[in-house]
């Protein structure tokens, strides 16, 4: 049972991990696209 359980995980877990990794990377990419740092111009006194 333990051998079968372990080898099933060897076979299937990488696919699931890949799925989550892709989701994470796509999220990171989208966040970078949305990234808008706010830099306010200094007040210039007339």
């Amino acid at each position, binding site marked *: 049972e333990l051998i*079968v359980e*372990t080898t099933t995980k*060897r076979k299937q877990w990488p696919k699931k991990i890949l799925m989550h990794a892709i989701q994470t990377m796509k999220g990171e990419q989208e966040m970078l696209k949305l*990234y*808008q*740092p*706010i830099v306010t*111009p200094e007040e210039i006194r007339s």
Partner: protein
Amino acid sequence: SVNPMAYEAQFFGFTPQTCMLRVYIAFQDYLFEMMLVVESVILKKLDGFPNAKISAFQIRKSTEKFLLFMKEHFDKLFGKMEEVLLQLVLNIPKNVLLPEDKVHEQYPYTKEQFQALQDEIDQLQQRYKAEASAGQALLAEIEEQKTVQAELEKILQWFDGLENICRAHGTSNFKESFAFLTQNSKKLQGVLKDVEKKSK
């Protein structure tokens, strides 16, 4: 030595040893079943011979003996069959990669290489954010420059306005006008002195 045959288990979904064990148990169960069937047939036939000196107990003993005999032979033969099946059928050759492991064939990454890639990605993300921030800072500075430019233009406009006023009142050059005014005042002074003298 114990061989877990893990790669085969990964492919089949069961260990080859479990498979052989289940085949063995199936065969064994069938053997027991057959023995019982044979025994019942013999007992039935025995009913047809009421004067037979053979008892059901003896039949049972013989059945057990026969079963033992068959089991011993079966075990020997099954042992050979199991060896052949495990080596030649339920076996993945050492040079074979299963499809799910094909990715490791050409690009084996070490833990350090993976970490280096991760670090590079993090660095690139930081650099991107820094460049985006620098871009925004430059845009903010452009806004500041526009404000300063507008103020400086106001000053220039003020000077232009002053010049226009002077020109409108006939004075385009302060220095010249002032010099002219001073000269005329001196002339007037001279004339007045003259008149005063002549008047006296």
